């Protein structure tokens, strides 16, 4: 069976030979136009006049469009219809698209786009948390507040208290392939090639912009050169722009953002300020905690509500909190609209509570690992009740108009499910019983394999001997909830054809952005048919093959699409089995598919023979498959319910060194133990873990977004925005899989692995804090990203 094998990425050979095609590699038809946006140069105000004569006169320019020239209003928002493709006169951030140029080359379009003469009535932009609070500039009416128990009383009555604040920056996705799209006009619609995690969203927005039914818009994506959440909604503008110009001119259109434009225009991870007030006891047990999240969402809503929700949903991380209140302010500021990024708010929530654990341990002089263990949820192995799974048929979906339904930013029109808190003693702040918690066992094993205790002691010794350089070590766990929190998105479809020669065509709604989803789902399909994986043809995601897909996001790709593909394969397999059973006078359940053969009634046929016979007997060899995640029930206003199907876990120990004269710092060694359930492909899962860790550590160390006082992003290229380079990965990097089956009924009992490892990078941040704390008695209060500058400031604070 191919499931469980570390097969290479489906496109590995194409990747290494340069033959793998990305959007800009697809040859366009003759006379294709190339598009570029003209961007605002101010962060807030109104356009007084926009003279585009020089743009129109520039060499190679075929068309210039402003909002006024559009036949219909074109919107790019995945949620609130608040992102006009081109400004309606109001300017909300520096980099906003004001006009659109179509020219006969990419360069000509870029050059022309810089020639506009625009006069603005500039207004004072809202940039900081303080400014936004003062102006009450926010999404939703007020802060969202969820609570469990009486946090205020618990803190007041606790023997010890502390309060503090951590600032954490946002993060640029830096997918290596920038945003790109191409539109080819068809006789009755349009075909879009888009580098997108969400083809259905592109289809929806393009159909809306052109006034066409979704059925007239075909969106295709074979692969992305990285996504990380950045291509969940941010590709809409390019696809819509290409579609509009293609529709107007009858010419194919292509558009890609130059890297600087990409970083200037598109949204990034939300930055957060987390204020905390904690009551705890002498053992380090947290008795009550009150979190206040402030996040700058940028100028439009995009996916900020579910992102901020997920931050709240992970404010507990791995810890059983009896009394907790979480207040979340979603602030509207004049920046790029912050968007999805691997973890989707989860990392920010997790970092908040990890900071609390770290500071509590520091105040008590305890090893932070012990404090964490004392606060853990109760282990699954200690709970008597079996995990509860309810049958909850999906309610009907509303059908009106062009409402965004398939986006995580959708304003759900479903009646909120009555979601009463569960009664057990192991519940999350949002009332979900935790029945699958395995971090106790994982922590024990990781502490042992990483030799944590002895190394911590040795580091203290080393630090005593070295006045300039200091080392630090830290452990951090992650418990991450798996499912879209907008319940109806937890569905997927697949389309499988078996051809008469025994070859298999596989299609599903998930997109490939490097995570290996296509390979994993193909392994599932091959396993269902008992054939070698080479027989399964992997094909581009295509809205004309599988409709109404959800974004490939929330780590859900293999859980959802693997199950949908399994359903489709099983339908065909059952038809073949029933047909062969009839021939051999046996039961269909006795027909076995294995080793590229079909075994029936003591005979073995090759898979090809079996298929050929079935075809000749007029058995349908094509099927769709569908899956919806069971047992979900969630009320996001109350903050109550069961938003997640299950939790994925992981733990890391990181050792670092810092230079106390300059704050320069390095990761020396990392040990990870990660829970991917029964891995579908340990090779690919390991890749997600290593890559997620380094990306998470990058978020918290070298990756710093800097806007100036005018609201201009000053770090808009890799020359100024520094993602980890090769030598920034840990010198010693040990990764192990926990490899126990998922108690929830997932595909082959695997677990989602896309996002959870990202949060293991938090151990690097905590290790830097540990190193800084060796310089003096005070808590170093390190903020993120821990650049050399911030580490030096933390060293100064630690010295007191």
């Amino acid at each position, binding site marked *: 069976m191919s499931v469980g094998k*570390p097969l290479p990425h489906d496109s590995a050979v194409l990747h290494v030979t340069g033959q793998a095609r990305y959007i800009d590699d697809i040859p366009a038809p003759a006379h294709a136009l190339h598009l570029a946006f003209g961007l605002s140069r101010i962060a807030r105000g109104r356009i007084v006049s926009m003279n585009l004569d020089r743009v129109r006169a520039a060499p190679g320019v075929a068309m210039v469009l402003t909002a006024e020239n559009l036949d219909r209003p074109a919107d790019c928002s995945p949620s609130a219809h608040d992102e006009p493709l081109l400004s309606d006169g109001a300017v909300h951030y520096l980099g906003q698209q004001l006009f659109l140029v179509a020219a006969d080359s990419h360069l000509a379009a870029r050059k022309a786009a810089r020639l506009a003469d625009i006069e603005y009535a500039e207004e004072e932009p809202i940039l900081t948390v303080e400014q936004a609070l003062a102006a009450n500039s926010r999404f939703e009416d007020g802060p969202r507040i969820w609570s469990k128990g009486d946090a205020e009383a618990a803190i007041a009555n606790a023997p010890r208290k502390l309060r503090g604040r951590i600032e954490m920056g946002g993060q640029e996705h830096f997918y290596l392939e920038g945003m790109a799209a191409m539109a080819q006009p068809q006789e009755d619609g349009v075909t879009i090639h888009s580098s997108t995690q969400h083809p259905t969203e592109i289809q929806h927005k393009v159909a809306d912009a052109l006034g066409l039914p979704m059925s007239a818009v075909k969106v295709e994506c074979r692969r992305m050169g*990285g996504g990380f959440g950045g291509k969940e909604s941010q590709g809409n503008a390019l696809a819509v722009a290409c579609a509009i110009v293609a529709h107007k001119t009858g010419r194919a259109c292509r558009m890609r953002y130059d890297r600087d434009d990409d970083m200037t225009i598109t949204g990034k991870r939300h930055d957060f300020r987390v204020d905390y007030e904690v009551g705890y006891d002498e053992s380090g047990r947290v008795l009550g905690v009150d979190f206040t999240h402030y996040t700058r969402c940028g100028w439009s809503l995009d996916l900020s509500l579910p992102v901020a929700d997920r931050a709240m949903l992970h404010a507990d991380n791995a810890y059983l909190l009896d009394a907790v209140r979480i207040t979340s302010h979603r602030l509207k500021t004049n920046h790029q609209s912050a968007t999805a990024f691997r973890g989707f708010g989860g990392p920010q929530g997790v970092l908040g509570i990890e900071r609390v654990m770290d500071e509590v341990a520091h105040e008590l002089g305890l090893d932070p690992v012990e404090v964490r263990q004392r606060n853990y949820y109760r282990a699954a192995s200690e709970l008597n009740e079996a995990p509860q799974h309810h049958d909850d048929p999906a309610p009907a979906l509303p059908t009106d108009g062009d409402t965004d339904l398939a986006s995580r930013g959708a304003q759900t029109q479903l009646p909120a499910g009555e979601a009463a808190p569960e009664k057990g003693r192991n519940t999350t702040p949002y009332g979900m019983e935790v029945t699958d918690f395995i971090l106790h066992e994982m922590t024990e094993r990781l502490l042992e394999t990483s030799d944590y205790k002895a190394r911590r002691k040795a580091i203290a010794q080393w630090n005593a001997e070295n006045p300039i350089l200091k080392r630090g070590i830290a452990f951090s766990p992650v418990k991450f909830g798996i499912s879209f929190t907008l319940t109806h998105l937890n569905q997927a479809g697949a389309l499988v054809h078996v051809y008469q020669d025994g070859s298999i065509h596989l299609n599903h709604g998930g997109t490939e952005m490097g995570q290996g989803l296509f390979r994993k789902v193909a392994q599932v399909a091959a396993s269902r048919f008992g054939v070698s994986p080479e027989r399964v043809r992997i094909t581009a995601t295509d809205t004309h093959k599988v409709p109404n897909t959800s974004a490939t996001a929330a780590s859900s790709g293999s859980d959802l699409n693997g199950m949908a593909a399994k359903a489709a394969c099983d339908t065909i397999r059952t038809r073949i089995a029933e047909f062969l059973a009839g021939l051999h006078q046996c039961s269909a359940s006795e027909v076995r598919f294995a080793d590229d053969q079909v075994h029936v009634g003591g005979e073995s046929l090759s898979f090809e023979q079996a298929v050929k016979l079935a075809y000749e007997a007029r058995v349908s060899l094509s099927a769709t498959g569908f899956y919806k995640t069971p047992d979900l029930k969630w009320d996001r206003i109350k903050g109550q319910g069961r938003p997640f199907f299950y939790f994925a876990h992981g733990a890391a120990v990181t050792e670092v060194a810092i230079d106390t004269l300059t704050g320069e710092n390095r990761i020396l060694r990392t040990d990870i133990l990660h829970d991917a359930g029964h891995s579908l492909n340990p090779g690919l899962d390991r*890749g997600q873990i290593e890559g997620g*860790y380094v990306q998470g550590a990058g978020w918290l160390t070298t990756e710093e977004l800097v806007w100036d006082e005018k609201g201009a992003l000053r770090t808009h290229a890799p020359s*100024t925005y520094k993602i*980890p380079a090769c030598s920034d990965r840990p010198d010693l990097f040990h990764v192990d899989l926990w490899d126990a089956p998922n108690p929830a009924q997932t595909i082959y009992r695997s677990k989602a692995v896309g996002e959870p490892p990202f949060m293991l990078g938090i151990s690097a941040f905590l290790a830097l804090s540990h190193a800084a704390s060796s310089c003096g008695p005070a808590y170093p209060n390190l903020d993120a990203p821990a650049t*050399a500058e911030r580490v030096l400031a933390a060293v100064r604070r630690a010295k007191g």
Partner: protein
Amino acid sequence: MTEIAFLLNGETVRAGGAPTRSLLDYLREQRGLTGTKEGCNEGDCGACTVIVTDPEGGLRALNACILFLPQLQGRAVRTVEGLAEGGALHPVQQAMVEHHGSQCGFCTPGFVMAMAAAHAQGRTDHDDQLAGNLCRCTGYAPIIRAAEAAEGTALPAWIESDREKLATLTTAQVAGDAARSADAASGPAGGRAPYEPEAGRGSDATLTEAPGFIPESADELAAWYLDHPEATLIAGATDVGLWVTKGLRALPETAFLNRCEDLKRIETKDGRIRFGAGVTMTRVMETLAAPYPSYAEMVRRYGSVQVRNAATIGGSLANGSPIGDNAPALIALGATIHLRRGDDRRELPLEAFFIDYGKQDRQPGEFVEAVSLPETRESFRVYKISKRFDQDISAVCAAFDVSVENGVVTAIRTGFGGMAATPKRARAFEAALTGKPWNIESVETALPALADDFTPLTDMRASAQYRLESAQGLARRYFAEVSGQRTSVLEVRA
């Protein structure tokens, strides 16, 4: 530009058109060779890495996005499409497949090319060889496993055959036949079917740019530049490249210097090393590794392999950047800059060359011919502070050379970058330390003087306060290091 000829994946090709057309655009738009990717278009991500072989047979990885076609005159280019031979993957390609070295795959062609260049040179310092290639998916670990697995495997045959063909690419061919429009005439490159250039994907810059001038010697350059003092001189194009790809500037007149062999000489005499202006930073790094290990380490960090292979010491100084790392180091070393205008030559202490932000002591028609520095100064150290260790521009660069006799500071030279509008010495700090006993108390006493020397700016790389604080930290580090203490965070191992 004057039509040029070069080898592309083993085939001779000729190209004309705008001299500032990048190799990357040419490959993707003109040749349909889309394996070479555009990740940043500024030489920072390595997704466009190609291998270029020189007439002398040297082979190096370069970023195609900031490599102008005239720089390829008489050279051989290999792209990812030309790496595998006869259906067999190159060993680094095979290893990348086997070790899960690719995820999204977009950076992969660039990695594979950088790995193949390192493989051809027998390099096993993989972190450094791949410092110029960014990957956002893998965390690099599987790529390094692949690079290690490919160590010592057989070299592809094209390395030799490209060298042989280059030798036969005669001067006449290199000079080109202007009558022929070559792109259409030349055959497929890289195993693909002949490609029909896509209408209009090309550059529109042809109308505004004169043909690039490609001198064969410094004498030729000197004579031409007198008549064309407004021209942009391009050596490695690691900076000028961005004027074009990011600034979208047309360069009306250009000269490409990389065929001036006499500008590439390294000479040592009378106790001084003299680098011709066209010496690449790769060769500067190799030359300085023994006498000035901290300088070589600084060069290793400030530019990736691809950048060091293109960038020249002369270009680095001539552009006058306040954040370049060579200038502070060379100022502290008491380097001399050698200028030439026609047949007139003069020399200046390097610190006198930098007059103000964007302004150097260089006359119209005058160019940097060489820079010279002492052969050895054991007391010299240079340090750089940046957000990332590798391939990053300094927030602060600081160089020190303190002479101590009988426990007393007898002379001191410093050089600082990132602290002012030009790279310069910290004269007040130097004065505060001169004549004092060489101990930490003297250093601490002198440190506040750095605030008299510099009023640094706050920008995206660092705050003014941090710049000053870390500059002082580097002075403390210098003292600690020459006193034998452990100071390098890069040398700590778990």
